[in-house]
């Protein structure tokens, strides 16, 4: 029996699905289409296209994007893999931070409910302590790695007088310093508000907070653009790559742990005080955290896979 004899679709339906299948090929990466696009197009013209064929093509596109080295001649260098992974981790961290800011300022913080539960159960208390310890260690590892990666790149750029690397590096440093100075100013301004306890916000406070938030967003975008240039143009040693891998793993673990405590805390809170707005806000925050966690885990998989397959990785 040939594959065509099983197709029960009408001629019109078949043509429509065939056209859709050809359009789905646009979902594949450019390099993949250059290599296999014409063949698959010819195959689609002959092969009966069913709904599952369309789903299969979509899954194939996802597979092609997640395995860019499959097409011969397009394997990315290990260094580039690690650098692009680092950029993914930075973007994911920014998304996660945004979710955390949302959790602390825009959403009912499930912290008090957590405390009441952990106060009653020593087991949960120990678990929370463990998660907090992991988070603390991760922040230290991430900071250390960040300093090492940037320090190593800066040292090499300075010795070779690579201004194309040094310029964005200086830009990044300037943005961070300005942002830190502004943040300190905001904290000082907030502490100078008159009154005790919960103090009413003045118009100037609202303006300062809003400016700080917009400034933070602009600084995050500017810093990411500068870092992207530094990492793409700079040279990375294998030692730095190893550190980058450890950091990525640590960040992914910390994100997963925070996501877990947020979700569990949110459920506990909603059990005690059911509220649709809180539930919706928490769901958005948890979704952002989940996306950031998955992105970081994928970045770790990507950089680790490249490293383990490299000659340096196999010599360990």
């Amino acid at each position: 029996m040939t594959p065509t004899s099983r197709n029960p679709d009408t001629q019109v339906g078949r043509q429509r699905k065939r056209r859709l299948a050809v359009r789905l090929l646009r979902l594949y990466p450019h390099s993949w289409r250059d290599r296999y696009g014409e063949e698959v197009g010819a195959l689609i013209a002959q092969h009966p296209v069913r709904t599952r064929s369309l789903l299969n093509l979509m899954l194939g596109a996802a597979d092609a994007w997640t395995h860019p080295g499959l097409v011969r001649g397009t394997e990315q260098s290990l260094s580039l893999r690690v650098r692009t992974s680092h950029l993914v981790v930075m973007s994911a961290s920014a998304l996660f931070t945004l979710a955390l800011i949302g959790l602390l300022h825009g959403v009912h913080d499930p912290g008090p409910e957590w405390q009441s539960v952990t106060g009653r159960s020593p087991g949960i208390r120990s678990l929370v302590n463990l998660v907090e310890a992991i988070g603390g260690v991760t922040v230290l590892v991430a900071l250390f790695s960040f300093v090492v990666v940037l320090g190593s790149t800066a040292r090499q750029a300075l010795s070779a007088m690579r201004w194309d690397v040094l310029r964005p590096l200086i830009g990044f440093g300037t943005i961070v310093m300005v942002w830190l100075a502004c943040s300190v100013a905001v904290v000082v301004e907030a502490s100078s508000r008159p009154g005790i306890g919960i103090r009413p916000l003045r118009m100037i406070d609202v303006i300062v907070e809003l400016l700080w938030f917009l400034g933070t967003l602009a600084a995050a975008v500017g810093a990411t653009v500068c870092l992207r240039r530094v990492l793409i143009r700079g040279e990375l040693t294998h030692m730095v790559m190893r550190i980058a891998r450890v950091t990525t793993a640590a960040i992914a673990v910390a994100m997963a742990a925070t996501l877990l405590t947020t979700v569990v805390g949110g459920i506990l809170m909603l059990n005690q005080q059911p509220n649709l707005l809180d539930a919706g806000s928490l769901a958005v925050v948890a979704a952002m955290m989940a996306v950031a966690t998955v992105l970081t885990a994928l970045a770790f998989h990507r950089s680790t896979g490249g490293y383990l397959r490299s000659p340096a990785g196999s010599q360990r």
Partner: protein
Amino acid sequence: MRTTEKSLGRFSDAGLLVLASLADGPKHGYAMIADIDQFSGTNLEPGTLYGALARLEKSGWIEPLESEDRRRPYRLTAVGEKVLRHQLTTLQGVVKTGTARLALS
């Protein structure tokens, strides 16, 4: 050998079917799908077929030939033939053991 099989991931079954299909000579995508459907009853979809082809080509187990009217045939390499023989030997062992145990029970 184990490592290279593992590198095919969820495409290992499709990969084996493609290798078996190419064992009697070069074929292009549509001919492989028809052949595999005939000898195994498995109807490979284009996404799965080309995912497996890309992996097999990258592993050096198959190689592309000159394109014929948008259709590119593939053939087994010497390494691919060796891998196919090894996998078939393993499968034969599984079949033999399973059959014997079923007969005993």
